[in-house]
């Protein structure tokens, strides 16, 4: 399948290793990956903070970049929730302005092929085992937008359970928010921190080496406290775990980013 990646602005800037891992998994499964170069942001930060007119201006770019895509895969539950929940009404507002004729139809055609990464694997491709190997204790943080926004259910954990060597431990109170909430984390920093403290307690209680999620924004927040407290527990996007293979140990290289091109057309991870 021809798979177009929407990397999202924050993953592009802060978590390139997630994008690389996603490309690796998709290519390992035999798909042709594309990256439309003009993409920037879905508009979620603006929309959810109340700057909806600014968010509106980002939709035409998204449509233009992904027009005609066979599948758009996104490593962020909250960005996909944003698109599904708000793009239809945003498109209507744009169309009503008279400046973007046909955008409602375009958005309606595009949205059904937009998938969150784990959702693409489990629901679109019907896979659970993607050939990964990760011999570590892992706990999975479900993310509100994954759980309630997209209704991912057991999907992400079913992918993790199929990883060879993994010791998957359920996170207590898995349905409870970690306290990130986008600009909430800085606007209501104290409350956000109190929520985070409970989540970190939960993560530590599992004895996991790694806390995984389908959303790096929650993970950036959780990782921030895990690191501040020098717990030695790490966070990884689900894609990075699924990219890991027995030989060589991909996970380490995915994170450090030491990727070179080999002499064939395939990228070799060393």
């Amino acid at each position, binding site marked *: 399948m021809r798979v177009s990646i929407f990397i999202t602005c924050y993953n592009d*800037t802060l978590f390139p290793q997630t994008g690389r891992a996603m490309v690796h998994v998709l290519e390992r499964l035999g798909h042709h990956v594309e990256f439309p170069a003009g993409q920037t942001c879905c508009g979620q930060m603006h929309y959810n*903070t109340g700057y909806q007119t*600014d968010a509106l201006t980002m939709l035409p770019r998204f449509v233009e970049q992904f027009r005609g895509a066979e599948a758009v895969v996104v490593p962020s539950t909250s960005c996909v929730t944003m698109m599904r929940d708000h793009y239809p009404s945003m498109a209507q507002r744009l169309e009503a302005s008279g400046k973007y004729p046909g955008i409602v139809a375009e958005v309606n055609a595009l949205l059904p092929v937009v998938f969150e990464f784990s959702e693409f694997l489990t629901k679109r491709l019907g896979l659970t085992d993607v050939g990964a190997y990760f011999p570590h204790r892992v706990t999975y943080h479900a993310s509100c937008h994954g759980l309630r926004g997209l209704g991912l259910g057991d999907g992400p954990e079913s992918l993790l359970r199929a990883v060879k060597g993994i010791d998957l431990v359920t996170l207590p109170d898995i349905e*409870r928010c970690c306290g990130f909430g986008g600009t909430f*984390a800085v606007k*209501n920093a104290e*409350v956000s921190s109190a929520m985070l403290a409970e989540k970190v307690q939960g993560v530590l209680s599992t004895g996991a080496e790694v806390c995984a999620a389908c959303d790096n924004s929650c993970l950036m927040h959780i990782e921030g406290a895990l690191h501040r407290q020098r717990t030695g527990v790490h966070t990884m996007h689900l894609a990075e775990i699924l990219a890991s293979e027995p030989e060589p140990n991909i996970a380490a290289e995915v994170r450090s980013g030491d990727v070179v091109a080999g002499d064939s057309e395939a990228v070799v991870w060393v």
Partner: protein
Amino acid sequence: MGLSTDGQALDPRTAPEFQTAARSVLNDAQLRKNVRHATTVIQNKRAKVVGELPDWQELREAGGALREHTMKFLDAYLEQFEANCTRAGGVVHWARDAAEAREIVVRLAKESIGDAPSEVIKIKSMTTEEIGLNAALQEAGITPYETDLAELIIQLGKDQPSHIVVPALHKNRAQIREIFQREMHLPHLGETPQDLADAARSFLREKFLRVPTAVSGANFLVAETGGVCIVESEGNGRMCLTLPRTLITIAGIDKVVPRFADLEVLLQVLPRSATGERMNPYNSIWTGVHPGDGPEQFHVVLMDNGRTDVLADEHGRETLHCIRCGACQNACPVYRQTGGHAYGSVYAGPIGAILTPQLQKMEHAESLPYASSLCGACYEVCPVKINIPEVLVHLRSRVVERKTAGLRVLTNAEALAMKTAGSLFRSERRFRAAQRLARMGQGVLARKDGSGEKWISWLPGLLGGWTQVRDLHALPDETFRQWWEEREKSKKHAGGAA
């Protein structure tokens, strides 16, 4: 300490911003422990009884549809209620705002009391809390006695309600015992729940038998019959509804339901959502007056107090669908940390965060729509499917509209930052330049940790909140798009050489 609100009414017009109020509550370990415990217990009870119903989602759908329909034809149903209630012997009064409502209730109470001692008994009612009725009664020389156990605790403790169903949720048993010992003059009061309930019962029973005027709120007003419905757990409400000579009920205009049969849905979803019970222990529905049976005089005050303004906002009006079950408060991870007082309104938690600013015409309580991580737990449990996160986001846009009007955007740091970010995202070139700049700019902030990784543990200005308790991984040397472009180039190169 800081466990009581020192009798200061929760008034959104004068309350501090949520962030500020939350900061001081977060220091109160006992309160947080009480709130965590109580909300967890109620949530678990709710989950159990909701799980018993195979048609729970259909019931929610029906509840939502019922409320939506009612709001669409609210004017007609209110007039129908007025006609039927009047026909049954009730007297209906209309109040535009809180001041009018207070004035009407005080006047009716005075007329009823006559030369008798100036006192009234009260059933728990958030609507009377909303309008500060107790203070108004006291100013008029009338002593109100709260008869709901939790409201009694609040009243005796000179506190304010922190939850719409369980107003004293922030107090634990030991604290309640202290209040009773002090205020009821019972130095030897025991500490079991039975001891506390006995003390309250003796204290209240005497008032039920003595005071001939009662004030109540309402859960539902039935347009078809003119009947009023109240559900409760203790039976103290039933005492107030049956023993006094005069009953004065005050209700928001949003409390109406079209038909008696509609209670079938609402009386299933309300108790399960509110207290985790299949049915409330006491369900009272009364219609007008009946000679020789119950109050001889019955008044209903129908109050607007901002509700029509809520109804006028197409995206905010579903807020009025609320049936005051409090499930969203119990489910909310923010409320779980702060309890109710930080919201500066009798309506706390997610529903308060959308209702309060709208009732205030968005002129006050502007920080409340931001008192949420938008996690969606409230929407998931709402028995009438109010999409609270959606309304929160809509209200945020109304707040932004006000604060960025005209040149005001230039003096607002957040607005400026958001406008700048917006302009970056509208151009790939500018976005890439910003990524480059950020990487260069972080140089002075990023430090190596023990394992040689670069982290940022201090950020300036608006972002400082982040680094209070969290570190931030330094920006990597290469963005994803740079990596992708390099890879494409190498591929082309490798392909060309082959």
